[in-house]
């Protein structure tokens, strides 16, 4: 009896030790090396089964979504009705602004970010647990995707490619605490830094802001590691700037991470300025701050 449990305990300790060793090695290698090779191989092996399972289970997901949505549908309908009434005057103003913007763009010869060439990809896997804020897409190296490419959908910035295989890529979402984006407040023109907080709203920090942020201010990419002017979200709570302190508030992301299906990878954007790892953005910036 004791010998049996000693053997089991020894195997348990050995497996935990091997796992610790692998984790340390993988973190130190920064997403490259043997860990990357194993990931690529496993992903290549499992991707066909995952795609098949994803297409088979899509009706189940749709049914589940429908059941969940029925309860919220009436409230959502009332809310949207009120919102439409509020927005109608704004639409008229926006149309006028749009006309003026088009004139300005013609004058200055500006190119909108939509000019960057992009390919469409579909999400087939979500990562292995609720702590993973990543998506796996069905486009990879053979389609021109490389680490660092921005990923968007029709609402705004989705995230950034942080690992890529022959026919798949892993996108780290903007809601991931390890991904940070340099941003601009379109109303005040102040720049800052946005990082994810998992399932909650995004955290916006502005280190030397002169003007504060107001509720509803549109936040877009600043244009260093991501193309400029891609929508990220709107400020949830107003915040004043205080000399000597960074302005901190929250931003509601434009994208609905739970509804992501098709996305666009901006393969025309050069990610040369990006870090090779893609997972150390926040650490780099935090290091710069110190």
């Amino acid at each position, binding site marked *: 009896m004791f010998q*049996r*449990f000693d*053997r*089991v*305990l020894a*195997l*348990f300790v050995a*497996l*935990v030790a*091997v*796992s*610790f*060793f*692998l*984790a*340390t*090695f*993988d*973190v130190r290698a920064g997403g490259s090396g043997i*860990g990357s090779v*194993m*990931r690529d191989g*496993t*992903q290549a092996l*499992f991707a066909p*089964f*995952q795609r098949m*399972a*994803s297409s088979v*289970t899509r009706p*189940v*997901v749709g049914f*589940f979504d429908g059941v*969940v949505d029925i309860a919220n549908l009436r409230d959502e309908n009332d809310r949207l009705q009120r919102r439409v009434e509020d927005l109608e005057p704004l639409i008229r103003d926006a149309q006028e602004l749009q006309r003026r913007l088009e004139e300005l763009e013609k004058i200055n010869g500006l190119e909108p970010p939509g000019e960057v060439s992009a390919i469409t990809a579909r*999400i*087939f*896997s*979500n*990562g*292995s*647990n*609720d*702590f*993973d*804020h*990543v*998506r796996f897409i069905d486009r990879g190296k053979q389609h021109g995707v490389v680490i660092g490419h921005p990923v968007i959908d029709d609402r705004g910035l989705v995230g950034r490619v942080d690992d890529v295989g022959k026919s798949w890529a*892993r996108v780290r979402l903007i809601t991931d*605490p*390890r991904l940070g984006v340099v941003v601009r407040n379109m109303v005040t023109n102040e720049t800052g830094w946005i990082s994810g*907080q*998992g*399932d*909650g709203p995004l955290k916006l920090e502005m280190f030397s802001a002169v003007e504060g942020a107001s509720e509803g201010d549109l936040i877009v990419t600043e244009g260093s590691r991501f193309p400029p002017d891609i929508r990220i979200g709107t400020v949830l709570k107003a915040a004043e700037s205080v000399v000597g302190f960074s302005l901190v508030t929250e931003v509601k992301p434009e994208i609905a*991470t*739970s*509804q*992501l*299906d098709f996305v666009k990878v901006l393969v025309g954007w050069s990610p040369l300025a990006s870090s090779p790892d893609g997972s150390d953005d926040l*650490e780099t910036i935090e290091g710069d701050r110190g």
Partner: protein
Amino acid sequence: MRPSALPIALFLVIVAVVIQTTLFGEGRVQPLGASPALVTVVVIAVARHLEPEPTLLVAFTGGMLMDLLGASPLGLWAISIVTVAYLTIRFSRYFDRGIYWVSVGIFALAFLGNVVFSIIGTLFGQRTLTDSDVVGLMLLPALYSLILAAGIFPATARLIKRQRDSIWRS
């Protein structure tokens, strides 16, 4: 020794990993923002039909696949699920004491698996504990796992028994 149970246990864990990475999660089936720990439940279920050493190896395989198909560093889920498997082996005698102990055991083990992952993940720079709903992400999956176990436990027992019977007949 029950050699016929090992391949079917491995197969079940691999199927669980594929389902976990495609059916559950954000944008898929994720009631109240959390999804069940399917792989953990399957490992607990097969542990009842395997010898202790193969159980640990099956758990390690499942955990490594979760790491390889997810975004966490290699080995984090492996540690978490191997720990769950080891505790299942050590407390296996309670699984014969009725539905109450089985339910408490599955809930506690699934919860513990997530706690272990979160703590070790944070040690390895994963920022799992900074998630705004970290408590919900540990408790709800344990509850869902308990519900799933009601179907998985009998199905696993039936599959392994059928496999064993067919080998004996041949």
